[in-house]
Each structure stands twice: as structure tokens, then as C-alpha cells.
């Protein structure tokens, strides 16, 4: 075994187009879903901000960024999609963006162009029916089978992310490796959404019993789903980056204004050094997230490594940022009526979904030739 080769890094900066896109998303989200509105929604049954999602997809077209124009999308790339994730992470926005990213990445590899175009336009919401914590690099769990010889499905998939408001389920079936398209509101489909640690992204358990399905032609379900999950992991890293930056910015702001013992808290060196360390970690999170998005955009053979590195790193940085924010806000950060817990819960959940840092490190070790 030898050291891995060094792939071309590519551009890690933000383009002008990306800056503009960021500004549009931020303006809309700041207006429509400031943190107190996000918090208030968590006490209701409307867990998803469907109105915000409608405007994000309709006015800005966030669901179709990585879809070519001739297939109904905006003809941008996963790089731009990653910038949107940063902004939605910064706002812990309760919209099904991550699930849409994974579903879109999966559909892009199939001939399901009608569905793809509808998803890209925000007309229909699709989601991959795989449990939230499954990470790329290990075999896709298949818990749904065909019932008898027909096209009816039966089985259960637990803890699916962003399935609360979805119209279409993309369901792995059969050991042979098929992928089925199921109408989420159709016969034989039961969805149960329960309270989740992250109140802004609730989990749904899905039970199929005689649910009509259409099997997607061609492709290799295991390979295609794995690749879609890798793209999801890359984009999730940008969500974590945006969240971490928000936590740092809010904390800096609070410590500058809060005085104890006659001095601004921001003047205490122990806190300054912790914030400096956090800032350093965030600069690294940005570099890994940008590189992973670049690899997703260019279909780089280094995507598996890039996505694993980004997840292994950004999961821990976002969690650190949220935990430091809560600690450094002191008592006020522990109250319900302060946004710190929204970020903490999202960061804690994000560190588990699409595979934990531990999972991604293990996968990475095999990818770069560091055997057990």
C-alpha cells in the first residue's frame, strides 16, 4: 500500500453567482423564517414551513439547481446547491431541502425525467426512503419487499428525514437491487411522524402494505443510492458550515455586549482563545465543504474521499460550535425562548444523519488505504 495520489483541488472560493444566490436565499429566509418564527412553528403540528419551501423552489429554484436545463432544472451545479445549504443551515430552516438533494441526485441517474422535472420545479417533493442515519459506503439497507409477484410493496422504513410533506417515495426493494417509485399518499402507505430531537427536521416512519409501485428501469440501485448519499453528505457539510458560522457570529455578538465584573465577556482571554479555535475549525470546515461540493459538481472520482472528510470534520465542528454557543451564552442559552437550542439540536442530529463522523472515518480508512 502506498500513499494516495493528490487529486486536483479545483476552485474552493465562492463565485459571484454564488454570492448572489446566497443573498437571495438569505433575504427570503430572514424575512419569512427568522428564528422566533422557526421556534414558534415547533410547537405546532405544521413542522415544515411549506410556504417558505414554495417560495424557495418557485422564486429561487433551489430544488433544480443541479438539474440540467434540458431536464427541467436551472443548469447550475452541486456547488451552488451547497451555498443554499449553508444559508438554510444558518437559519435552521424547516424545509425539506436535504431530502430533495438526495432524491434529485438519485433521479439524475435514472430515466425518470418527468418526476425529476417536477421535483426540480418544486411541484412534487420526493424523498429516498432510507433511515436517517445510514451513511454512504456501507450496503444500502433493504427492508421493503414485493408482495407476491405483483407490483405491490410491503415493509417498513424507519426514521426517514424530510418525508413529512413528500409526495413521492423512492424505495429500495429486493436483494437484486431495485428502486421503486411509490405515491406517498397512495393506498397501502402509512406515514407516522414523531417528535424528534431536532424539532425542525422531524423523522417519519413509513409502513407499506400493499402499496402500488413502479420499478425504475435500468441502473444499479446499490451504486446509485450510494452515490446519491455521498452527494447528500457533501451538501450536508455545507449546512453544518452555515450553522457553525451562525453560532460563532451570534456568540461573538453576545459576548461583546454582555458585561460581567465590569468588563465585556468578550475581553476575557480564555473565551477569546476558545472562539479563535472555533474560528480556525470553521475555516477548515469551509475548505472541506467547498471541496466536497466541488467534487460532487464535477463528478470527481475523489467524491467518496471528499464527502467522508467533509462529514467527519463538519459534523464535529458544527456540534462544537453549537455546544460552545450554548455554554458561552450561559443561562439564557438554556432557555426555550432563545435560539441556541435550535442550533444545538440541529447540530446534534446532523452529526448522526447520513452517517456519523465515526462511520465516515471508518469508510475513509478503507478508501485511502489505512487498513484495520
Amino acid at each position, binding site marked *: 500500500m502506498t500513499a494516495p495520489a493528490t487529486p486536483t483541488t479545483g476552485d474552493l472560493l465562492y463565485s459571484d453567482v454564488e454570492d448572489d444566490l446566497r443573498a437571495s436565499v438569505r433575504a427570503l429566509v430572514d424575512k419569512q423564517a427568522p428564528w422566533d418564527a422557526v421556534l414558534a412553528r415547533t410547537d405546532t403540528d405544521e413542522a415544515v414551513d411549506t410556504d417558505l419551501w414554495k417560495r424557495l423552489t418557485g422564486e429561487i429554484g433551489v430544488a433544480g439547481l443541479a438539474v440540467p436545463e434540458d431536464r427541467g432544472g436551472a443548469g447550475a451545479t452541486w456547488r451552488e446547491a451547497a451555498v443554499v445549504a449553508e444559508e438554510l443551515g444558518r437559519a435552521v430552516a424547516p424545509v425539506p431541502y436535504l431530502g430533495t438533494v438526495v432524491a434529485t441526485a438519485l433521479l439524475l441517474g435514472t430515466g425518470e425525467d418527468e418526476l425529476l422535472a417536477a421535483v426540480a420545479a418544486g411541484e412534487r417533493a420526493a424523498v429516498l426512503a432510507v*433511515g436517517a442515519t445510514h451513511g454512504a459506503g456501507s450496503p444500502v439497507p433493504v427492508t421493503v419487499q414485493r408482495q407476491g409477484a405483483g407490483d405491490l410493496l410491503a415493509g417498513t422504513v424507519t426514521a426517514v428525514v424530510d418525508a413529512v410533506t413528500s409526495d413521492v417515495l423512492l424505495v429500495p426493494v429486493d436483494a437484486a437491487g431495485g428502486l421503486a417509485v411509490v405515491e406517498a399518499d397512495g393506498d397501502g402507505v402509512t406515514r407516522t411522524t414523531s417528535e424528534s*430531537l431536532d424539532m425542525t427536521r422531524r423523522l417519519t416512519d413509513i409502513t407499506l402494505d400493499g402499496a402500488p409501485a413502479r420499478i425504475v428501469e435500468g441502473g444499479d440501485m446499490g451504486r446509485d443510492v450510494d452515490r446519491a448519499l455521498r452527494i447528500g453528505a457533501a451538501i450536508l457539510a455545507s449546512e453544518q458550515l452555515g450553522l457553525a458560522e451562525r453560532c460563532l457570529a451570534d456568540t461573538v455578538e453576545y459576548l461583546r455586549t454582555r*458585561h460581567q465584573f*465590569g468588563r465585556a465577556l468578550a475581553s*476575557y482571554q480564555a473565551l477569546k482563545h476558545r472562539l479563535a479555535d472555533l474560528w480556525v475549525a470553521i475555516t477548515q470546515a469551509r475548505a472541506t465543504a467547498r471541496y466536497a461540493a466541488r467534487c460532487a459538481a464535477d463528478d470527481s472520482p475523489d467524491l467518496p474521499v471528499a464527502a467522508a472528510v467533509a462529514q467527519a470534520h463538519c459534523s464535529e465542528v458544527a456540534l462544537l460550535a453549537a*455546544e460552545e454557543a450554548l455554554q458561552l451564552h450561559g443561562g439564557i442559552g438554556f432557555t426555550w425562548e432563545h435560539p441556541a*437550542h435550535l442550533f444545538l439540536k440541529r447540530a446534534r442530529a446532523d452529526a448522526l444523519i447520513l452517517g456519523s463522523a465515526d462511520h465516515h472515518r471508518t469508510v475513509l480508512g478503507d478508501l485511502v488505504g489505512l487498513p484495520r
Partner: protein
Amino acid sequence: MTATDSPPDATALASRVEEFLAEHDPSTTEPAEFLRERFAAGLAWVHYPAGLGGLGAENGLQAAVDQAFAEAGAPENRPRLNVIGLGMAAPTILRFGDEAQQQRWLPSLWTGEDIWCQLFSEPGAGSDLAGVGTSAVRDGEGWVLNGQKVWTSMAHHARWGILLARTDPEAPKHRGLSYFVVDMTAPGVEVRGLRQITGEAEFNEVFLTDVRVPADQRLGEVGQGWAVAQYTLMNERVAIGGGTLPRESGAVGPLTARWREHPEARTPGLRDRLLRLWVQTEAARLTAERLGQQQAAGQPGPEGSGVKITFARLNQECSSLELELRGEDGLRYPDYTERRPEVEDYASRDAGWRYLRFRANSIEGGTSEILRNVVAERVLGLPAEARADKDVPWKDLPR
């Protein structure tokens, strides 16, 4: 017993308990009555003075007395609900109260008839407690309070509260404070549950609007409030540090249980983290044991601050790792609906709840940052933080 009697030793105490139980059958005596009689007999807290529930005995002799009463099926004085009263208010009343105040408050405090709460922290005065802004203004013989307190455990159960208020905003911050006992049922006292990140409202906010406090409800002199409060808090610190713990107690317990029960969740990387936390927990346990041995040997050490920092961190890291072990289950949460938890029982709670609740461990009862300052300055003798708030009138400080 007269004041000139020498205090009873363990044997004498055992006899007194036996005599008391012979005269007051726990199975037939009404509980409140039993507790009042026990207080009157000096068997409540035997190291307190005679006439105030004690017999002036040595501190260490209480445990045997309690055990004898427990074995006889005697009623409890609600120690979990009245932890502030028993642990903090009582020693302060004993130290700073006059005889009338002691006679007035200590009996019903000890019996648990009156629950007490502590009204110290404010939204603007957390770590910097001496910055409290709740005002106490003279009104004839008494005082009128206005302000807001926060993080008040038990306020919704409490009859009395110990309170720190500013009586002289012109004086430097530590010198303008006084210490009061507030009737929580008085007009102008409003208690509101304070919802926390777990969804529950374990603590309270207390709003004080023109609350009248009689002159005889002040503890210590006017302007001496900081010293009285320090004494109260010293008793809190003692209550938090030290003690004997079983192996794998605390947050590592549910974590190791999960590990043992769920082989499918095990990975080499998680095992390494688990074992690191196990070692740290065992080290912290032995440190707490050693601290207890030092205190028992009359060598009170400063290790308590370190123990508190460490247990806060371990609670947080263990519950976080537990969520990872739980996988999908770690993403679920039972219920965020606002509720009032009656008693803290961490072990029986959901892992997610514990992860969230333990975030406060490094804030409540002294932040880990303040405790590091304490260790650095009081133990290692390093210079104190520069501060510009000591000799300035409180009203002129930046806030």
C-alpha cells in the same frame, strides 16, 4: 438539657432516639406532628444548638440518627424538595439570624412544612452575582422590593425565599447589597415557569413588583448582603462536591448499559471513546472519594471545583456518545411539550433529554469558566483577573 451540659456522644444520641421512638410511635403519630416533636427533641440536626432542632453534637453524628429513624419507619422531611431550605437557607439563618428569626423559620423549614427557594441570580447578574439590580428601598420600618430573579428552583412550591437585593446603588457593587427573607405569598410576587431547552419548566422566573418586606425579615446588617450570600453559596458548593459514588454511576451508566445490550451498535472507534470516558469517570469517582476522605480527616481541599467541572463534562460527553450509540433512536425525542417535572430523576429519562439537560451542568451552580478561575487563583495562586468594577458606584457600571 441546660446550656452547661456537654453535648451528647454517639451512644447518648442512640439512647435519645430510642427514648423518642418509644414515646412517639411512627406508625400511629401524624407525620407532621412526629417531625415537629423530633425537632423539639433536638434530634432534627443534632449539630444545631439546643432549642433549634439540635443538641450541639458533632456534625458527623447525624447519619446514625437519620438511619435509626429511617429504620423505625419515621416520616421524611421532604429533603429532595427542600434542598435549598435545608442546605442553604438553614445554615444562613443559623449564622446570621437573630433568635426570633431562628425560632420563626427553622422549625417549619426542617419539618418540610415550608419549602424555601433562593432568589439570587438575575438576567443581568449570573456569574457576576454581586451585580444584582433588584432594588430594596426603605419604606418606614420595612422595605419595598422591585426587580426580577431567574433560575429559581422550587419557587412554585416555596413559602419563603432568600433574596439578595441592592439597597445602595451609589455604593460599589459588593457594598450596596442586603439580604432578605421574602414571603413568596406576599402581594407583588409572581412566579412563572421558565421553559428550558428540554421543553420542561424545571426552574422559574420570579417577578417582584412593589413587594413589601418587614424590617425583621432582613438577615445580617444593611450593606452586608454580599457576605451573607457568600456564606449561603459556600454551603451550596459543599453540597455539590465530594461524596461516595458506585463504579459506573452517573452518565456513564446508561452508556455502558446500552453498549452491553446492543452489540450491533459497536464499532472500534466508539469503543475507544467509551473506554476513555469510562477511565475518566472512574478517575473522577476516585477523586471525589479522596476529597471526601480529606474532608473527613479535617483537611478540606479545594478539589471540589475540579470535581464539579469534571462531572459536568462527563455528563455531557457520555450522553452525547449515548446518542451516537442509539443511532436512529438517538434522533427521536419523547415530548417537548411544556411540563413541570416534579423531581429530577436523570437515570429514568430519555437519552436525548439527558443530553439536553446536562448542557446546564457546566453553567448552573458556578460555570466551569468561573470554577477554572477559582482553581487558578485560589489553588495555584495565579493573579486575579483585572477588573474595573470594584470601587465604582454600582449605578455607573457598564451593563
